[in-house]
């Protein structure tokens, strides 16, 4: 019969593994090429076996129970484990259909190899578990580091507190008793002796200045950033006025815009401008027609705030060193200072998410440009 022949073709050439078994003897009656390929048994080997033979021993009772049970004509019996000819275990999804085969009561079984799917699922599960583990680990590490940082911060705070109290006291004694000696015992000292005592006093005052600048740097690091609308021009005018009052004999042309609003921390901006303008003031001390300017301008492709002077300037080869604490490009005799000011400026700018850079030329002045990361927050 043509129809039966076409059904046989459909069975034999089907890419899905299929077989037929006798529901009474459980013997295989037929298997298609796809089944032969999947299980590794030849057609003859299949026909010599029963469906019990391709199950792991521990699954056979369950199989028998199912086979003996009343099943609907089309039965999806779900996930089973099957054995291949070389003893591997296959994960399969099984559907069977009641039929008759060469006069025998039989079932046609369609098998879907779900191994790759399961492996993908298991892999996915393992990956999820691993991700979860990593996330947990990360959280634990962040908590650990936070605790460490909190401890370190507390330690640092204690340290600076102690420095600001305890390190200054001996300096006061050194300066005070040196002066007492100069005043009370000065007659017994010669010129050289008095000179030495002057040096002792100068050194103690310089150390006090270093301590104060370091404490200011550390205060900046610890400060909480409170960003608000601040007028840089107004702050700059205040700082410059103070400088003018300290040295009224200096003639400096000051160029500050009417207003220069920014979104930044007011206290930190005051410290920043104090440092930059004091520098400009200091390094124009020997300049004829000294000029100090605050501006906002396009620099290297971005808008930057600028403090510019026409003073001593610096060699661009050393531009990077400017911002390193205690690095100075001039001797203390030339221009006094501790070398902490620009490090403080950099820390303030970075705290705001901005950057600071300098341009200069020896004898032609210096310009300090900074941004305040205003667009980013």
């Amino acid at each position, binding site marked *: 019969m043509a129809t039966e022949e076409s059904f046989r073709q459909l069975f034999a050439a089907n890419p899905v593994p299929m077989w037929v078994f006798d529901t009474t003897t459980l013997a295989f009656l037929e298997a298609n090429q796809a089944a032969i390929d999947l299980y590794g048994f030849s057609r003859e080997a299949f026909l010599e076996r029963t469906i019990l033979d391709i199950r792991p021993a521990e699954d056979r009772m369950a199989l028998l129970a199912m086979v003996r049970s009343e099943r609907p004509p089309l039965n999806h019996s779900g996930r089973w484990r099957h054995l291949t000819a070389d003893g591997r275990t296959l994960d399969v999804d099984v559907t069977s259909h009641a039929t008759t085969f060469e006069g025998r009561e039989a079932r046609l079984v369609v098998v879907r190899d779900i191994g790759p799917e399961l492996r993908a699922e298991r892999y996915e599960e393992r990956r999820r578990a691993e991700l979860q583990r990593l996330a947990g680990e990360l959280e634990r590490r962040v908590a650990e580091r936070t605790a460490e940082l909190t401890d370190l911060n507390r330690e640092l705070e204690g340290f*600076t*507190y102690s420095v*600001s*109290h*305890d390190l*200054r*006291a*001996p*300096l*006061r*004694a050194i*300066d*005070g*008793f040196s*002066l*007492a000696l100069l005043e009370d015992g000065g007659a017994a000292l010669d010129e050289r002796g008095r000179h030495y005592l002057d040096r002792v*006093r100068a050194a*103690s*005052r310089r150390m*006090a200045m270093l301590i104060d600048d370091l*404490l200011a740097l550390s*205060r900046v690091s610890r400060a909480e950033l409170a960003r608000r609308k601040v007028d840089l021009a107004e702050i700059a005018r205040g700082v410059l006025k103070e400088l003018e009052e300290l040295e009224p004999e200096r003639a400096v042309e000051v160029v500050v815009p009417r207003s220069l609003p920014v979104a930044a921390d007011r206290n930190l901006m005051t410290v920043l401008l104090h440092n930059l303008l004091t520098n400009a003031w200091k390094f124009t001390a020997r300049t004829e027609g000294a000029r100090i300017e605050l501006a906002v301008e396009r620099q290297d492709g971005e808008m930057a705030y600028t403090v510019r002077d026409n003073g001593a300037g610096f060699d661009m080869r050393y531009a990077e060193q400017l911002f390193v604490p205690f690095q100075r490009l001039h001797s203390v005799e030339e221009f006094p200072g501790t070398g902490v000011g620009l490090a403080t400026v950099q820390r303030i700018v970075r705290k705001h998410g901005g950057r600071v850079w300098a341009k200069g030329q020896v004898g032609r002045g210096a310009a300090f440009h900074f941004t305040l990361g205003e667009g980013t927050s």
Partner: protein
Amino acid sequence: MTRGDGTKTIVLVEDNPDDVELTLRAFERSNIANEVRVVRDGASALDLLLARGEHEGRDRADDPQLVLLDLKLPRVSGLEVLRALRRDERTALLPVVVLTSSQEERDVVESYRLGANSYVRKPVDFVEFVEATRQLGLYWLVLNVGARGR
């Protein structure tokens, strides 16, 4: 603690002997003639100022005109001394000037919060120290009109 000439004493609460000597010298240099009584720690300062312990029953007419208080002190800290003085009605209005090394903001804020009349940071430069002492003495010993005894 009133002397024959009517000037009252200053109590200096300071544990560092160098600072004691320098402060006394600074007073001398600024022509402050008041008798200075030195106490070396916070507990002794409270005993003296609150007339308790070994100073139990001392004449309250002897109260000082001014207390100069260091913050870092053994046993009872300067801030604790200040707190105790302000809590006691006998010393609540006594002029107390914090005279210390630090300008840590928390020290300054806490001192004023607890009722310090003034906060002076001891400069390292002794010439500046003498000047600070002179102004301090001028204000608190000469110009200031105290609430007590009125």
